[in-house]
């Protein structure tokens, strides 16, 4: 699979989805949730063949989120890298796992990323951000696993070593 397909396309898709979900739309008078789409490639890239490009791409994607959402620079790069680091560290365990087992690992990666965000913002602001707010964003982001599964499947289908 070319790098443009495994890196470029997910990056563009995440950027576009994040912008669309950042519009001030209200559905039935309620503001829709704000999922962290970038956690999808952060998890999927960790499962793929090791490379130096995913960390670089995650820093870029995280900085984009910082600028889009007005967060302190470096917050989302760090959170995404923490999710990637967990997946990268256990990638041998993950290979060949069932869909639901991988979803569990994805939830763990999302939880680690949100915990890093809570700790970093707690240190910066001097008090812990709302656990309920973070839990809500975590829950919404955790539902995005099918996209990560699809990305990993596409990579494995395209990689001759998996045939």
């Amino acid at each position: 699979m070319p790098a443009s397909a495994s890196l470029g396309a997910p990056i563009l898709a995440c950027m576009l989805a994040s912008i669309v979900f950042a519009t001030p739309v209200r559905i039935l008078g309620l503001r829709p949730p704000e999922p962290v789409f970038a956690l999808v490639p952060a998890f999927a890239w960790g499962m793929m063949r090791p490379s130096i490009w995913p960390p670089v791409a995650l820093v870029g994607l995280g900085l984009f989120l910082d600028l889009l959402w007005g967060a302190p620079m470096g917050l989302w790069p760090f959170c995404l890298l923490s999710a990637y680091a967990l997946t990268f560290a256990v990638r041998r365990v993950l290979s060949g796992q069932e869909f639901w087992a991988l979803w569990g690992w994805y939830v763990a990666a999302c939880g680690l990323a949100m915990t890093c965000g809570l700790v970093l913002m707690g240190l910066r602001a001097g008090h812990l951000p709302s656990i309920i707010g973070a839990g809500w964003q975590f829950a919404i982001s955790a539902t995005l696993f099918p996209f990560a599964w699809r990305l990993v499947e596409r990579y494995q289908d395209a990689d001759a070593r998996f045939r």
Partner: protein
Amino acid sequence: MSLRDGPFGDIKPPVAWLAALALFVASVVATVLFVGDRPDSRSGVGGAVRRTADEAAARAGGVLSVPIRWIDDGAAGVRAYVLAGSQNRQLRRDLVAARGWRDQAVALEEENARLRALLGVRTDPPLPMVFANTVLDARGPFSNSRLADAGADRGVTDGNPVLGERGLVGRVVGVAPHASRLMLLTDVQSRTPVLIARTNGRAILTGDGGPNPALAYLRTHDPLRDGDKVLTSGDGGVLPRGLPVGVVARGLGGEWRVALDSDAAPIEFVRILLFKDFSQIAPPGQPGPADLPSTATEAPPPATVAPTAAGGPSPP
């Protein structure tokens, strides 16, 4: 000659180790950026990058918001058509109530004017304001901010307070030529000095990313009650005094929080008050802080403070 043809061509670097090294370097870069990005140091390259990004994001958000507004307007039109009868009855009731309030307001206004004239009170001049649409909305737990489509070209500056339809929404924390970043009261980094209207108590409204910011450093003689009105106190001169903020409510953990007035209505349309922090305003020709005499009290002559045998000051 390519590297593969050279003497090192046969060396195969451990890919996993290189990836781990890249991960470590990227983490260090993220940490350095996080530590180095302070709100008071956004005038350099980081500030310029943010302004450029805000400008671009506001344009993209402006384009994407158009169909959303059309859909919203269409839905509102359908809803108004369907609910026209009940709305009409409600409006008639509101009108009767409003006429009573109008008469009271006119009487109070006249009384106020008379008392002000008697006391010689000088009221603040009305503040100029700019109307803007919010085009992008960050509502996560770590940042609650919005992008408005009015910027430096319309006189907006850092620190300007922002009001929604019903109350204070937040303040401006970044200004691009045609866009500005608004930090909402609910943002985890937001701190706003407020007063409790009934008790004249003071507190700092502290955002935590949730919908109801907490009242920290509360200082009041009378205990708070649910429903007490909260206004900006104007302490520190960053915000004008008396802007409506919300009402006091008890949180799940028993702490005092504020149900924001701005939550009662959509804040897609905001008013940015062109209020200048009056602690920084100095008329032209006025001496600066460095030119002013020291505020430290000089030590009085010993004769005036030296205690006497009875414990009081000695006569001059």
